């Protein structure tokens, strides 16, 4: 009784606080009203918002990548999931996530809850102070990053997880796990400012973190039925739709043109086109590396590997994209491309990762983070004012940056793994994690959503009106 009254009281408090006018926030509107808003705000915000829109569209990319790799009986659920997750993330990240992630503080951010009452945004979110884009544009950009990271988590869980798991973990991930971890890595926290870890757009902060969640859930979820033979050998469960998979990959590739270059948080320094060039070269090398490797090892021009090669390379170039010169994109992307088929084959032997997310986002995220320690050019280290100003190993900067990278990603991995494992453990013990065998065989679309994603493929014509 008492408790519920309290709960209601604090809810009321929150609502009341929200409705009261925000005080002391440096107001874009006032400046605009008084005609003193500099053009630079508009120009930088424009780029941040447009880049953010491209990144938002990556939700469709992940959805179709997953749909393509699912069987037809589990194709519709992906849509419900992506909408639900994106929505929960939006509200959580607005309420608390952004404040934790980008407010000032070594361990956790402290300002911007409900994106209000933060005073001067350039000071309240000092790590993003290099750009004068409006705080709403920065919020939007960082939110879509959070949503990408969350989308990555689910790559390992297709075709057998309960829908409720998405809902609960999304709240925790977008409200706490991602904000805190990303705060450490690129939100001004200790890994960035004390260790000097470099992660331009989130090989670790977004991709490796997402893959770590994906790993934590997979360990407790187990493989799809029939994925391993009685003798434990892996069996093929081919995805039902390579064209839609390809649509996903192409949308993600496009999205990365917002993801990496948008992490400049502005246009006025003219850096973003260089970041696009670097990003694109890496992806290209990744496709070539993955196709060649998989052709050599399996004598097949594997469509899925071509796509995952692009993704893996894009993940890998994400951290270095603002720190390296164009040429370095080729080895970074190529090696990521080589990692993809080898990593997938190795992981497939034991655990069931239907889309290859552990490899493409996990291993390649690690590789990309490490790559900064090798390839960072001094001029960019200096310009970004993060890490060793003498650059990575190959530029004569020694092992310093490399060590910072390894330390940083290890800590981020451990934190996210523990938090995620615990969350999933609690979910498993309470509502449960996995649908029944009967549901799994029938497919999630009909069992959890009441209707097939492709009704005409499953219900005879005579039964449909």
């Amino acid at each position, binding site marked *: 009784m008492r408790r519920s009254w309290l709960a209601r009281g604090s809810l009321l408090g929150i609502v009341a606080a929200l409705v009261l006018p925000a005080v002391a926030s440096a107001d874009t509107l006032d400046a605009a009203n008084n005609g003193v808003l500099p053009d630079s705000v508009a120009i930088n915000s424009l780029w941040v918002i447009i880049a953010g829109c491209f990144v938002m569209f990556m939700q469709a990319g992940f959805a179709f990548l997953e749909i393509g790799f699912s069987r037809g009986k589990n194709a519709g659920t992906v849509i419900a999931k992506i909408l639900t997750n994106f929505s929960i993330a939006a509200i959580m990240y607005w309420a608390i996530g952004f404040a934790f992630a980008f407010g000032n503080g070594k361990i956790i951010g402290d300002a911007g809850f409900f994106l209000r009452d933060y005073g001067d945004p350039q000071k309240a979110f000092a790590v993003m102070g290099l750009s004068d884009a409006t705080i709403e544009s920065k919020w939007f950009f960082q939110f879509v990053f959070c949503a990408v990271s969350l989308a990555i988590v689910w790559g390992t869980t297709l075709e057998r997880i309960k829908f409720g798991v998405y809902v609960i973990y999304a709240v925790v991930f977008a409200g706490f796990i991602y904000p805190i971890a990303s705060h450490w890595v690129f939100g001004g926290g200790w890994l960035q400012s004390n260790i000097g870890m470099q992660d331009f757009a989130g090989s670790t902060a977004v991709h490796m973190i997402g893959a770590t969640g994906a790993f934590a859930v997979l360990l407790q979820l187990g493989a799809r039925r029939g994925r391993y033979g009685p003798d434990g050998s892996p069996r*093929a469960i081919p995805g039902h739709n390579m064209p839609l998979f390809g649509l996903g990959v192409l949308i993600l590739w496009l999205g990365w043109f917002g993801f990496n270059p948008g992490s400049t948080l502005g246009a006025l320094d003219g850096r973003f086109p260089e970041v696009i060039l670097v990003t694109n070269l890496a992806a290209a090398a990744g496709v070539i590396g993955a196709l060649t490797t998989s052709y050599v090892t399996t004598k097949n021009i594997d469509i899925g590997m071509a796509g995952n090669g692009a993704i893996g390379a894009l993940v890998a170039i994400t951290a270095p994209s603002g720190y390296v010169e164009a040429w370095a994109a080729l080895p970074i992307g190529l090696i990521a491309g080589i990692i993809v088929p080898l990593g997938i084959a190795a992981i497939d032997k034991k655990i069931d990762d239907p889309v290859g997310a552990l490899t493409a986002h996990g291993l390649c995220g690690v590789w990309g983070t490490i790559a900064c320690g090798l390839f960072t050019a001094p001029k960019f280290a200096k310009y970004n004012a993060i890490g060793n100003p003498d650059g990575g190993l190959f530029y004569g900067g020694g092992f310093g940056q490399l060590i910072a990278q390894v330390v940083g990603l290890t800590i981020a991995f451990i934190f996210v793994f523990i938090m995620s494992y615990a969350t999933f453990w609690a979910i498993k013990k309470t509502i449960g994690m996995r649908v029944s065998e009967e549901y799994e065989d029938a497919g999630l679309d009909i069992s959890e959503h009441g209707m097939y994603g492709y009704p005409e493929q499953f219900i005879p014509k005579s039964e449909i009106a």
Partner: protein
Amino acid sequence: MKMVVAYIRSEVFEPIRTELLELGFPSLSVTEVKGSGRQRGVTGRYRGAELTDYLRPKLKVECVVGEPDVQVIVDTFLKHARTGAVGDGKLFVMPVEEAYRVRTGESGAVVLQAHRDAAAAAAG
């Protein structure tokens, strides 16, 4: 009455259908099936793991005709369906005891095919 059941390659069906129509046997039913026989399966690969489909796509044709017409049906199938490679398929003849035309409720061998008008339609 007999049902001639044929498992054939789908690409040979059109000439068979046309010739049967000309011969006055317009009525038949086809189903897409998968068959196993001498023909080898197809082995795919998905992310390294092999996946063999031991079944090859075939067309199953069912054609019910009166006893005297069985041979001409069989001959027509044999004529067009043979490529000489494994996988050409088989024909089986099965007994049918009664037949009804739904539209009219008629029964007996008279309902099986529609010799005259169909042949005429094919010609015209």
